């Protein structure tokens, strides 16, 4: 190293400082230019084969991630909307079903009541009919009894008196007998 410094000092004493530096460190315009070209070659190579494709890939990935995030947000929003809509639909369906159940219940109550009233009416009608039928039957039986009683009274009278009774006699005797029984 000392020899280099000595050489540098020697050169410096002969020439200016710039010439001295050039001579000491081997600065040469052609070598400098060659190294500039080398450096630009490196820049070209790195820009074309490394930074360009890699940054494009990083950008693509960044865009993809951003797009994914955006989609995720959209899906989350859609999911939230869907959940809200579903809840609303369920609530509405519940409400509708409650209304239907109530309507059915009311309808069933009304129907039951109507049927009951109808049944009561029918029963009353049946009762009236039965009473009427019983009354008619009783009247018929009474008539038959009266008729039988008259016939018996007539027959008994005919046997007791030993004469043949005319229809007028039979009718008169029947009426008298019946009037006595009824009174």
């Amino acid at each position, binding site marked *: 190293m000392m020899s280099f410094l000595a050489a540098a000092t020697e050169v410096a004493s002969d020439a200016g400082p710039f010439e001295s530096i050039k001579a000491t460190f081997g600065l040469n315009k052609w070598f400098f230019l060659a190294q500039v070209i*080398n*450096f630009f070659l490196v820049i070209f190579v790195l820009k074309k084969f490394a930074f360009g*494709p890699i940054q494009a890939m990083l950008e693509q990935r960044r865009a993809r991630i951003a797009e994914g995030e955006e989609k995720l947000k959209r899906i989350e929003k859609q999911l939230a909307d869907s959940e809200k809509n579903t809840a609303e639909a369920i609530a509405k369906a519940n409400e509708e079903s409650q209304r239907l159940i109530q309507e059915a219940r009311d309808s069933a109550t009304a129907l039951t009541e109507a049927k009951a009233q109808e049944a009561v009416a029918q029963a009353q009608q049946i009762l009236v009919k039965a009473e009427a039928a019983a009354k008619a039957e009783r009247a018929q039986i009474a008539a038959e009894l009266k008729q039988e009683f008259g016939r018996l009274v007539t027959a008994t009278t005919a046997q007791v008196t030993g004469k043949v009774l005319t229809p007028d006699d039979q009718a008169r005797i029947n009426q008298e007998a019946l009037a006595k029984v009824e009174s």
Partner: protein
Amino acid sequence: MSRRPLIPTITASLAAAAPALGAGDGVHHELPLYAQRLHDWLPITNSMVMTWVAVGLIVLFCQAATKRMSLIPEGLQNLAEWMVEGLYDFLGNLLGHHLIKKTFWFFGSVFFFILVNNYLGLVPGVGTIGWTTVDAEGHQGFIALMRGGNADVNMTAAMAFTFAILWFVWAFQENGLKGFFSHIFAPKGSFSGVMLWMMIPIFLFVGVLEMISIAIRPVALSFRLYGNIYGGEQTLEKLMALVPPYLAFLPALPFYFIELLVGFVQALVFTLLCAIFLKLICDHGDEHH
């Protein structure tokens, strides 16, 4: 067997192999300050060979990593994406979204190129495989076939001056001509009245200093990187020469680990300084975008 000792073991083996490949003859124990010309009529230096190797390796890696890209990365694509995205985000935090999108092609290239070159300079054989020469006066010399790319000030200057030009382009694009000069010369802060008139000459003087600083930046960038890398390689050379050839690996071994760190740190420092210089001039303009 744990996995942990594997990396140091490999590194140590590489480190051990390095001196064995070239330091055996004991002829060259000093790395020249400049890259050596390999041929009399062909303008090629040993550091150029190294940068070509670096370019070739970068091309191969990029091709392999981006050949079949998929949305779900794996293998080399994963590694490449991790490196690029990591650096992009790191510089993006400093420069802002607008500037990093515009300038990453440069900062990314600078960082990876310096890093690959720095690590290639540590590969056994670089700086040690070569041939001996004898000049007309009978002095013996040694020319290495390859030399660390950043151990040549032409290379570091090429990157630094390219940045200097791009710095002006980006600064004018972001601020405009008026904005650029007002950014340098106009008083910063809110002054009014007499205070403003007092501040104008001060900030004009500060602007002149700023212009000098801007002019010195590429030189400082060049020599900072060159000095650190050259210094590291020279240290390894000297340390290997301290002991007999068959033990040459031993003293250099710890410094190989340091050089691995230095290689990364210097790539980061160069890139970060460039980014900060750009941020400083575009800071005002960037707020508007």
